[in-house]
């Protein structure tokens, strides 16, 4: 069954949607959308280094993302520049360094479009294994640290005062985020991964009223986006990554309807 490229894409995509659901919720609760974007930009540098030293791409992207995350924490202690300025600084400098380095590797042919937008239809069996095993580990860790992480998301001081050790768990969360980006870079691409993190979670917020519900509905919307997106791309011969995001945003627009209706009913 997995011989078929389309089935492989579907299995990998659904795997990614299951991981991005809960992490995406945390990203929007913590106002980290741009942070996810920065990590994704820095992934280009990771990919370049992977080619240069023949490393595994996912591994290399994970390491670079983790380094960027730690750099950010360090910069925040040294300067009083606002978080978004520092993120912009890191995102574009790593992107630029990645592109410059790429110039030196003229002997290797790069599929730039594939890097930016991903190529889920080229997914191999190893990729599927990576997504599902990696995803299982990420979600397992997330499950164990959820209470601490969630309480620190609601209020840092309160979590800290009541012994939830938010510092450590924030750090672990950052690494998990780097992990998701590393796992999904090949399939979704650097430019679109933040979309898959944020849009299903945002749509889910519109139609749910508690955190657990929001996480599960976000996963569901992610899976729907991937499935419908892939079928659409097959049918209309459009590129797969962007098609998935387009479906996600259509689902987001649909999720606004109950909100509007409720508003009208209350008036």
């Amino acid at each position, binding site marked *: 069954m997995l011989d078929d490229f389309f089935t492989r894409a579907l299995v990998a995509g659904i795997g990614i949607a299951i991981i991005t659901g809960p992490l995406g919720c945390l990203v929007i609760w913590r106002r980290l959308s741009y942070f996810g974007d920065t990590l994704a930009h820095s992934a280009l540098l990771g990919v370049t280094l992977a080619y240069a030293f023949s490393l595994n791409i996912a591994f290399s992207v994970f390491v670079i993302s983790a380094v960027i995350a730690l750099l950010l924490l360090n910069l925040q202690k040294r300067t009083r520049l606002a978080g978004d300025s520092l993120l912009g600084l890191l995102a574009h400098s790593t992107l630029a360094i990645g592109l410059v380095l790429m110039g030196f590797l003229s002997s290797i042919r790069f599929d730039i479009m594939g890097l930016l937008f991903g190529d889920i239809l080229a997914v191999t069996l190893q990729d599927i294994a990576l997504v599902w095993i990696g995803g299982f580990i990420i979600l397992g860790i997330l499950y164990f640290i959820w*209470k601490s992480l969630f309480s620190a*998301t609601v209020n840092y001081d309160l979590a800290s*005062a*009541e012994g939830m050790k938010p510092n450590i768990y924030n750090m672990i969360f950052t690494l998990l985020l780097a992990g998701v980006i590393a796992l999904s870079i090949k399939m979704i691409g650097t430019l679109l991964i933040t979309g898959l993190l944020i849009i299903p979670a945002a749509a889910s*917020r519109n139609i749910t009223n508690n*955190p657990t519900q929001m996480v599960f509905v976000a996963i569901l919307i992610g899976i729907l986006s991937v499935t419908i997106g892939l079928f659409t791309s097959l049918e209309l011969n459009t590129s797969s990554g962007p098609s998935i995001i387009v479906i996600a945003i259509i689902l987001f627009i649909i999720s606004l309807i109950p909100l509007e209706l409720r508003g009208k009913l209350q008036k």
Partner: protein
Amino acid sequence: MSKDNLLVSLENAGIYKSPKWLIRGVSLEVKNGQIVTLIGPNGSGKTTTAKMVLNILEPDEGSLKRYTNKIAYVPQKINIDWTMPLRVLDFMRLTNNLSNNEIIESLNQTGVEKLFKEQIHGLSGGEFQRVLLARAIAKKPELLVLDEPVQGVDFNGEIDLYNIIKNISANLNCGILLVSHDLHFVMSATDHVVCLNGHICCSGKPSSVIKDKAYIELFGEHRSKTLTYYQHDHDHTHASDGSVSS
């Protein structure tokens, strides 16, 4: 109350935030069953001191010793925005696993059991304050730190909440560190008062603090005297929704 019941002590502690000391030279203790209050003008370091006791801020000089881990905190300000869908019952379980019954029981104590399934961001300031207090009580803490717990609560509600706080200290036999502006409550119901203004101006039993020159200077002669022994007579009580019960 013996000395062995010590829950937390600060010794000569201070926090430096460039270019000045926010607070310096603070020594205080909280014991089981004791209510210690911090008073002082805005910016005098009350919240900073509370955060040192809670170990949210690490003292830049001096030391903190804590003898309990069962701590509950009611912070001065919490913003929970719309992005986070959070019902009162989810919030009650934030750092603790509680059954629905335990949650309702605590909410009942602060008079807001009806809000059980409401969204947190839809609550009024006073309602939220009651939920915060209920959450802290539900943890059955040994040390309870309350930073301005009655802000935004209406007048009768304030008296209600202060009574609840007195009862908590008696029923749970926990130590309470309270930051308050309310001199009546401070003087009538607390065991130890610490008056701050960047350092400890004066401290001791309420009856001795009110005679202290530093205290009178800080709060003005008139206010410090007239408000000292305030009594409030009520021949009926109000539920939180305003209805009268006898």
